[in-house]
């Protein structure tokens, strides 16, 4: 039952007053002198007052002592125990105070527990953050290095793109030259075709001329054969003349012999015979000369015949050569026409190539612009990365400071005793 302290004092006063009254009633009934009645009453009242006062004050001071000890423990940081008052019959405001103090202790314990947990977490997180920021710093450094490389690469890229652009331009010029050459080639192939056609016509003419020459040589051969026959006839006649001359000579010889046998009478006959012999000798010589001439003529005509045969062979070979030349011209015409077609297609292709090369030049220029933009962007990224690195380093310092603060906070809250089970649970 709850009784407030003021009521308790009132009740005590009432008990004292009641005890005085009761003693005043009881004492006369005792076998004691009268004069002592007053004294006994006073003493009795005093005793009752003392007892009640001792009991009340003891009850009050005990609770206040418990409360004082509880607050002292709280102030010492011991939040492990609650304030527990002795159970009395009549509770009062001290119990409210104890309950409030316990609530404070609970709140403090929760708060400290939370602070400890949070500071541990903060410490761990700040350590992790520091580690992470260090890693991030390192990564940022690596990124900066990579960015540097990228920047250098971008510069190299720009340089290479410039070179590529130059090469492509040169290639485009060369392609133009090739296109022009292909055009010239086409014209040359056309001219070659025309020339080959003329050559083919000329070979036909040459073949006809060769045929004419051959027929003339054949006619000449027949003429020479006829001439040889005539010469042969002359030779036969000369043989007859030679034979006649020899016979004449023999006759003259025999006439001379006969004249010698006739002595002086045969002298004139011998002279005639000698003249006849001389004539026969002269005839013989002339016939021999003619024979030699005929032989020479025959040899010459044989040579002419051989030469003509060789000429015929040569002309045959020439005809074959002209035939081959004609077929070669046909082949040349075919090839030249094919070359013309191919050169035209080459010209078309090279024109397309030229357009393609121009497109490549444009693309390379676009690439060059992009590369320059990339280089600029890379420089910006590099600057941003440096700033980021600085921020990361600051963040590292900040997290380290935060870790130290968390440590300090943990140290600060470590003087609070929250009880073993709670400590273990929070650890």
């Amino acid at each position, binding site marked *: 039952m709850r009784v407030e302290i003021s009521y308790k004092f009132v009740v005590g006063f009432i008990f004292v007053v009641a005890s005085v009254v009761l003693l005043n009633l009881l004492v006369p009934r005792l076998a004691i002198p009268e004069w002592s009645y007053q004294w006994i009453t006073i003493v009795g009242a005093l005793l009752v007052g003392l007892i009640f006062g001792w009991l009340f004050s003891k009850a009050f001071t005990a609770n206040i002592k418990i409360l004082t000890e509880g607050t002292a423990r709280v102030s010492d940081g011991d939040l492990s125990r609650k304030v527990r008052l002795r159970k009395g019959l009549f509770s009062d405001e001290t119990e409210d105070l104890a309950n409030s103090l316990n609530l404070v202790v609970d709140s403090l314990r929760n708060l400290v527990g939370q602070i400890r947990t949070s500071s541990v977490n903060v410490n761990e997180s700040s350590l992790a953050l520091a580690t992470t920021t260090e890693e991030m710093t390192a990564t940022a450094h690596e990124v900066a290095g990579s960015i540097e490389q990228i920047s250098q690469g971008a510069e190299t890229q720009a340089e290479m793109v410039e070179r590529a652009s130059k090469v492509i331009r040169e290639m485009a010029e060369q392609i133009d030259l090739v296109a022009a050459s292909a055009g010239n080639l086409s014209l040359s192939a056309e001219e070659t075709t025309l020339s080959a056609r003329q050559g083919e016509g000329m070979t036909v003419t040459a073949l006809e001329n060769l045929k004419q020459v051959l027929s003339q040589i054949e006619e000449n051969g027949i003429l020479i054969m006829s001439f040889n026959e005539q010469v042969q006839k002359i030779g036969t006649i000369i043989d007859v003349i030679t034979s006649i001359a020899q016979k004449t000579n*023999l006759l003259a*010889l025999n006439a*001379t012999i006969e004249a010698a*046998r006739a002595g002086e009478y045969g002298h004139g006959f011998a002279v005639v015979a000698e003249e006849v*012999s001389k004539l026969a000798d002269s005839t013989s010589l002339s016939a021999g000369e003619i024979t030699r001439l005929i032989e020479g003529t025959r040899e010459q005509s044989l040579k002419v015949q051989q030469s003509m045969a060789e000429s015929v062979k040569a002309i045959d070979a020439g005809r074959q050569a002209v035939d081959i030349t004609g077929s070669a011209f046909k082949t040349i015409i075919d090839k030249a026409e094919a070359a013309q077609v191919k050169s035209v297609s080459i010209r078309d292709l090279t024109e397309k190539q030229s357009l393609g090369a121009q497109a490549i030049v444009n693309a390379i220029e676009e690439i060059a612009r992009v590369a320059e933009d990339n280089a600029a962007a890379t420089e910006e990224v590099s600057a941003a990365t440096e700033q980021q690195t600085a921020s990361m380093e600051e963040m590292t310092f900040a997290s380290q400071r935060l870790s130290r603060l968390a440590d300090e906070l943990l140290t600060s809250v470590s003087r609070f005793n929250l009880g073993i089970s709670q400590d273990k649970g929070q650890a």
Partner: protein
Amino acid sequence: MIQLLPFKIGFETYALELPDIQEVVENRPIHAFPGAPVEILGAIGFHGRIVPVVNLPRLLDFPEGNHGQRLIVLTNGYGPMALATDQVRPILNVEMTHAIRMGQASERPYIKDIINWQGETISLFDLEQLQGALERVCDPQGGR
């Protein structure tokens, strides 16, 4: 001064005196005698007579070849007889002061004289020796 008819057998030049010669003939068909010695080529018909032909190259020990195209028919004093030669040349009028007379014991028994005529050596035939030799050839027993 004598008149000579030079003729050639091989590369040698021989000669006969003109009075010993009847006629020179050529390309006459020569008919061979059966069983005749090799020194006798055969016989020709000459103005209705049969005249034997002496193989002079064979008799003078010339190698076998195309000899005897021209035949010199001798006068009746040594005939009737014809000598086969290779070639007959025109008649020469020769001074005998150019001649060198050969003896009987010469190595060439049918040569009577050797005449040096204008740088050429001409052997003058001894027809009597030739006739004797032919008789020996044709009658080896010597008339026995």
